[in-house]
């Protein structure tokens, strides 16, 4: 029986940590894109450096598709445990390809990646063989593959280069020659000029375009990617990148940096953020800008360090003692990841409030192609003033925003204080002034109002059923809803969470049937919605096993409610 795949192929690579799933993914990402295929990949892995059971989904499609699929069309297991690890996703439709003697899956197609590699000089080339095999299956131009491999290994020795070249060719031949699978997928030349980005890339490029010149952090999965990306830009873009002793130091250092005129980014995860709460409150009090990227993972505590969840919204909404304004963003796409991060710097500088960007492991570690965006469309807004002798950092203004000076720029002094203070920033016990200062800070809610990005409605404007989601689930939910093929259904996606977009109320009230989809166990956005609008969403699709939603799963769960 020949399996024919025409427009959407889900390949899953599985193996243990250290077997190099990532390198196969990297090679394929580039090659598929230059060949005009849409590419999407997502990885799930254990918190260990060697061993265990991990997998990477690679989705190749004719049309843009960046939702995560449950379905596995082709499984390439690199170790025996892969089968048990993925048993729930393997169906009779799944074609398993690999080393039969090692994997022992009944009915699998035997391809001896390792043996082929050994013949070429070493087992280490098995990954390249496997990548070549998939290229062959997809009938990517062989020359393209060869060129790419030489480029990819260009910094390695001649020997390594030529062996990889031989490996990709050998794999290619095996893939191309395989009967039993027929892939004929439409290509799209436009894809070639797309960007190919991970979520970490999008956030990091957004930070560059936001004028970020100081990054501090403390390593913590899944936020470390952004820290390392920014470090890789450090030289070219003159960015100070500092790994601090702990997260408390991180946030206080970032506030010091903004105070001195830098545009600092913090990147962390839930546990690290929990340690910063006092610092967030300081940010609120001294009305400092601060841009903080929080890549969520399942909690509580250490939880599942390398997995995904949307469980930190509640904490971020209320982090820090006392009342003060903040902005919370949660990009749903790479383009939003870029644009919102860029904007975050300007928003933060303008309103002098902390701006949080909530992503998660699924978002930062996934990679897909996306139409190129233009940095030229974005501007760095510094919002700082040269001070005069009598400069007052906290001058009381109509909208609550005081012109922000920087020490050393101008002749004034810039004084900020974590105690309640007067316009000059000096400690006060004047309780009437205290009230004016609280009011000043809270007034910024009104000032921010016009900047708020309303939630995005995708689908039928005359919806009866509204599927509500936020952040990283955008692509998967939209794809699932589209696949339902129902007429009166739409998705409402929030990428701006707080201050809560009032526009949401009308949409929510209009819907006869409301369903929330959240990658956490308690429907945190649903609570925020009820708090802000009074609308309760009782139909909840929640997932909290550490994995992202799959398109089929969302489809199935929503179906139950319509």
């Amino acid at each position, binding site marked *: 029986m020949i399996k024919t795949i025409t427009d959407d192929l889900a390949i899953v690579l599985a193996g243990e940590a250290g077997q190099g799933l990532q390198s196969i993914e990297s090679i394929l990402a580039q090659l598929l894109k230059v060949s005009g295929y849409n590419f999407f990949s997502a990885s799930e892995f254990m918190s260990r450096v060697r061993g265990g059971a991990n997998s990477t989904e690679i989705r190749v499609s004719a049309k843009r598709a960046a939702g995560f699929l449950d379905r596995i069309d082709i499984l390439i297991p690199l170790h025996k445990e892969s089968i048990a690890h993925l048993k729930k996703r393997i169906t009779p439709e799944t074609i398993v390809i690999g080393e039969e003697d090692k994997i022992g899956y009944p009915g699998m197609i035997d391809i001896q990646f390792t043996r082929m590699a050994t013949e070429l000089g070493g087992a280490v080339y098995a990954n390249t063989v496997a990548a070549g095999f998939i290229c062959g299956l997809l009938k990517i131009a062989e020359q393209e593959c060869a060129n790419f491999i030489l480029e990819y290994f260009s910094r390695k020795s001649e020997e390594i280069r030529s062996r990889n070249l031989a490996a990709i060719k050998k794999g290619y031949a095996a893939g191309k020659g395989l009967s039993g699978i027929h892939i004929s997928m439409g290509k799209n030349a436009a894809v070639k000029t797309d960007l190919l980005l991970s979520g970490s890339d999008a956030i990091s490029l957004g930070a560059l375009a936001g*004028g970020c010149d100081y990054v501090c952090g403390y390593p913590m999965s899944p936020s470390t990617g952004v820290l390392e990306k920014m470090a890789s830009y450090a030289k070219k873009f003159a960015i100070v990148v500092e790994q601090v002793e702990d997260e408390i130091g991180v946030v206080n250092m970032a506030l010091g940096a903004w105070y001195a005129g830098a545009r600092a980014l913090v990147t962390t995860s839930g546990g690290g953020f929990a340690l910063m709460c006092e610092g967030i409150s300081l940010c609120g009090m001294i009305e400092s800008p601060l841009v903080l990227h929080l890549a969520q993972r399942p909690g509580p505590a250490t939880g599942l360090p390398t997995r995904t969840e949307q469980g930190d919204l509640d904490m971020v909404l209320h982090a820090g003692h006392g009342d003060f304004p903040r902005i919370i963003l949660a990009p749903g796409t790479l383009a939003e990841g870029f644009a919102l991060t860029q904007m975050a710097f300007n928003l933060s500088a303008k309103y002098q409030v902390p701006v949080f960007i909530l992503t998660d492991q699924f978002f930062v570690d996934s990679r897909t192609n996306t139409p190129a965006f233009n940095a030229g469309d974005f501007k760095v807004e510094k919002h700082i003033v040269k001070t005069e002798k009598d400069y007052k950092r906290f001058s009381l203004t109509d909208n609550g925003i005081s012109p922000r000076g920087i020490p050393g720029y101008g002749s004034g002094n810039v004084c900020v204080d974590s105690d309640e203070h007067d316009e000059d920033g000096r400690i006060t016990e004047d309780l009437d002034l205290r009230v004016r200062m609280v009011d000043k800070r809270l007034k910024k809610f009104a000032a921010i109002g016009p900047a708020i990005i309303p939630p995005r409605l995708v689908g039928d404007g005359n919806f009866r059923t509204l599927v509500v989601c936020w952040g990283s689930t955008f692509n998967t939910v939209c794809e699932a809803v589209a696949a339902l093929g129902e007429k009166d259904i739409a998705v409402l996606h929030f990428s701006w969470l707080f201050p809560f977009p009032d526009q949401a109320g009308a949409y929510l009230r209009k819907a006869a049937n409301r369903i929330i989809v959240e990658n956490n166990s308690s429907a945190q956005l649903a609570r925020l919605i009820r708090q802000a609008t009074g609308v309760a969403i009782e139909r909840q699709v929640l997932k909290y096993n550490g994995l992202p939603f799959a398109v089929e799963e969302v489809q199935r769960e929503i179906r139950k409610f319509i």
Partner: protein
Amino acid sequence: MENIFDFKDKIDIAWCPGCGNHAIRQALLAALEELHLGREKVVLVSGIGQAAKMPHYIRTSFFNGLHGRGLPAATAIKACNPELTVIAVGGDGDMYGEGGNHFLHASRRNPDITLFVHDNMVYGLTKGQAAPTSRPGMETPVQVFGVFEKPLNPMALAISLDVPFVARVFCGDVGQTKEVMKKAMAHKGFALVDIFQPCLSFNKVNTFKWFKDNTAYLPDDHDPSDRAGAFKKSLEEEPFPLGILYESDRRSTFEENLEVYKKDRSPLYQREVDMKMVEAEIMAKR
């Protein structure tokens, strides 16, 4: 002539009359003036506590942040604008208790900032609990059986961390306090001055007299460049040695190590990102 760092009008200082902090303030005002620093180029950074109120009583820019968290902010401020003179100030609880970890790691970074710790061996602002430097036996409303933890020895600690300027003074000697402050500020790199300061209200053990009786100036032949020797000296107690225990010029500073200043010495706030370069970086992702 007026000291430009002082206020023209009388200000309300929240410290108790007679508190050692007043003397420290006088010494600091004099030191700042004698170093001919520009008022707009000095930033005081502090945490929370009686000592940490100092910035409010000196006319400079300041960042009065959280209890224990002065050093990370100070480090960043200097790193973002090396033209500024950055002075961190705090109490013994602030800097060695709550902020202990930042002290450890600021020592490793060696930013060119000066740290003054008002060491009154007690928590003043919160009314009299033990500090990390409190002496054994001191009874307080929390330490009802008397302190039994070993007091932190900031001198030994700093020398073990190779802090390149380690000194202790007693604010009862305003002259020496000022002189050492000046040297500390002039020193390129992280400089610690632990300042013995009586707290009249809550430390009835380590009084002005006690400090006077239990301190001794370092002998003239003390060699501050000998780290092991300085360490040995730093272990001496009652009398505690006063003066510059350790000084070294072997370490480069945090800012010197920052790549961003290798070609361009301008502070970060003066720079602009080149959007064309960002554009290129984006396009490299094609």
